[in-house]
């Protein structure tokens, strides 16, 4: 048995430090739907999967996959995958509008093969985006003076996951994966009135720190050279929100949420030497939180269906330059602004490409996604652009 060497430590440490600074503190803000329920559910993705409609597993060959630790079995060397995401949205609601943009690292994941049958994965990924802000300008008359004030309720933070997994190949084409995840992050909420000369309300704020553990498992099966199938599931246990007493008022209380079972399945098939078809689906049982989130409009099970095609039409520097197209439809688990509104869905079309360097030791992928969320009946309509860059490096 030969042991695959790890990535050179210095550049990996630099990347982990830089990326970790952003990922470890989940300061995102991609959508006004982050105001509903527990926030906007964020699925850590890489650019190739995003271009194919949002598929996260089931692609041919060994893969560094957030959902599928079994997919890392068979990698020729240790690898690191990092995704960098740019979002911009344009929302309308009740005759009002809002736009915004953000940049974040939704995924950093390392994979370390041990021989040809074992692999270990570890990484950070986002889960719940809880960055939002409601504001209202108002005017107060104080004595003979008129004072313009800004009322603000804001939330900053979210839930991230640190996930470790191990894959094992008991048979030639079947790999099994098991893993555990640690929920991290925190939220800070501020409610108050901002007077002239202030940049934030003088009162009142509360902070929580998230914790909890979950488990995951996956199966990766390659029945033939042309077909790959993968199935993954995670069960969250409970997400504990503990009050940070040093940064909170006396009345702040903690919370606990039973996180749902989440299932991802996907398959890909090469229907021609240069054409790959993918199809996938996700499901998450968020309805278990329906009662806990009743005041926010409840929660329902979410699902998503994705499909895509990858065609290798061109070559650059002797490497294929694939063209990827995909689409996705998704049911969001949380309502916007309470149960007076209908549930919201999300639809997106995506495209992208990628280029491998150094004989496949490094790869850069790019995807562009255009989508819509919500509807008039959902109280909020939002269109968005999303660009995702991924870099994957394998070390020798």
């Amino acid at each position, binding site marked *: 048995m030969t042991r695959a060497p790890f990535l050179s430590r210095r550049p990996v440490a630099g990347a982990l430090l830089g990326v970790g600074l952003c990922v470890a503190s989940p300061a995102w803000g991609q959508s006004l739907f982050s105001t509903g329920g527990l926030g906007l559910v964020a699925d850590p993705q890489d650019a190739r999967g995003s271009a194919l409609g949002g598929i996260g597993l089931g692609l041919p060959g060994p893969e560094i996959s957030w959902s599928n630790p079994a997919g890392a079995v068979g990698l020729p060397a240790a690898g690191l995958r990092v995704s960098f995401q740019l979002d911009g949205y344009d929302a309308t609601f009740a005759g009002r509008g809002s736009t915004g943009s953000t940049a974040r690292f939704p995924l950093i994941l390392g994979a370390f093969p041990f021989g040809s049958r074992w692999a270990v994965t570890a990484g950070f990924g986002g889960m719940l985006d809880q960055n939002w802000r409601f504001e209202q300008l*108002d005017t107060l008359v104080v004595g003979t003076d008129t004072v313009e004030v800004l009322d603000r309720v804001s939330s900053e933070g979210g839930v991230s996951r640190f996930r470790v997994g191990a894959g094992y190949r008991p048979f030639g084409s079947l790999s099994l994966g098991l893993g555990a995840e640690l929920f991290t992050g925190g939220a800070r909420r501020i409610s108050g009135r901002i007077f002239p000369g202030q940049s934030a309300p003088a009162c*009142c704020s509360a902070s929580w720190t998230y914790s909890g553990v979950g488990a995951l498992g996956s199966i990766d099966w390659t029945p033939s050279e042309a077909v790959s199938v993968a199935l993954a599931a995670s069960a969250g246990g409970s997400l504990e929100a503990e009050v940070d007493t040093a940064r909170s*008022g006396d009345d702040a209380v903690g919370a606990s949420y039973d996180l749902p079972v989440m299932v991802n399945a996907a398959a890909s098939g090469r229907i021609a030497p240069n054409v790959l078809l993918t199809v996938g689906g996700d499901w998450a049982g968020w309805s278990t939180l329906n009662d806990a989130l009743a005041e926010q409009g409840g929660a329902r099970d979410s699902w998503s269906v994705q499909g895509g095609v990858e065609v290798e039409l061109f070559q650059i520097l002797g490497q294929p330059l694939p063209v990827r197209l995909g689409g996705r439809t998704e049911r969001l688990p949380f309502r916007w602004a309470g149960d007076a509104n209908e549930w919201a869905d999300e639809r997106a079309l995506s495209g992208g490409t990628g280029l491998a360097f150094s004989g496949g030791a490094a790869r850069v992928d790019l995807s562009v996604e255009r989508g819509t969320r919500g509807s008039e009946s959902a109280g909020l309509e939002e269109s968005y652009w999303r660009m995702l860059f991924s870099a994957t490096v394998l070390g020798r």
Partner: protein
Amino acid sequence: MIQVIRGAARGAVVLLATAALAACDNEIPTANGSDLFPGGEVPTTLLAEVTGTDLILREEVYEGFGNPRLAPFLIVANDFDGVFDAHALARFTDIPDSVTYTSAGTSRREEIGAYQGGRVLTQVDSLATFPRSTATLYLWELTQPWDSATVTWENASEQPGQETAWTTPGGSVGTLLDQAFWFPGDTAQKDTVTWELDSLAVVRLRSPDHPGVIVTSDQPGLRVKMSSLAFEGDARPAGRPDTVVPVRATEGPQTFIFTPEAPQSTAVLRTGGLTGDRSLLTLDLEQEVEACPAGGGACSMVPLSEVTLNRAQLVFEPVHVPGGYRPLAAPRVVLRSVAEPELGRFAPLGAVLATDTISPSAFAAGTDREFELDLTSAVLQFLAEQERARREGEEVETELSFALLADFEVPDLGLLWFQRSPTLRLVYTLPLNPSLP
């Protein structure tokens, strides 16, 4: 090949690390509308006003922190506000007997043979003069000696046992030396008033026994504030009578006499003026304020420390200052902390708690306006200190003591009067309780 792979890998991770550090800045999705606030809960801001014995624990007025005879300015007034008169007195004791000049590149010092003439000059403080229109000022010779330490409007000297009245109250006027004009805004004159003197007048002024000069005005309603007088002479050296050398003299007693004396009233808080009045106040900040939620519900009284204080103002009511002692320049009203108010007039002053400029017109007759002094920072700091003391189990201070002072850019005659029992106006917001779903 391995080198190529390592280079590519390192390049990729360094690029990502750089991008990571550069891209951490994010915009938070923001929606406008209070209808979106969770639970429809919007902040409630209320106003409370406290005054009288609910607020004021101590209110005392002290004077004697200034000496009118040491005032670094002179006042000339005639029937200002219908009552106030003032004349400026000066005696020049250092009009030179010798002069130094340069002739053919050589510096020479000689006796002064004679003065061709001279002038007396002063500079008018245009911001503290009323009206701001042309003023006529007369320079006279005094005919009666006066004691600079005790001279008053009625008496040339009030030395014990040697009291000497002016032959004419307000100073015994002799020869008119000159009349001069102050033209406000004149860019050539630049607020300087000049009285010309002939050679004979200079000779008289040089005499050691000469009682000096007096400045008056006959313009009704006038009050002029000006700098000390200066003498400028055109000296002719004894050895070079064809040469005129300018000399200057400023030494000698100068003061102003006035009538009536500064008004007194126990019904007001006083500050400023020739005697440097100050008022000492102690506020009770152990206040409770009403908490009435905007959406309805029962009101309750809560300690000030349990709400968010947005603004604290001490609201004064300026009072007309009689006797012609109202300020003409815009003074700053200053509150300075007092740590030991029980020491009364000897209580040392601490840091500035609040300060603001007040319009002098607030003290004129017929005006009715409030003067709001922003105390927000001071009260917030006080509440924070209370909170710290409670947390650490120390004795909690509930009283805030301070001195009310007037601060003119240049020391001034103007007195500031305010009604007793100022009002503490508090603007506060009721606390909300942010929560997770």
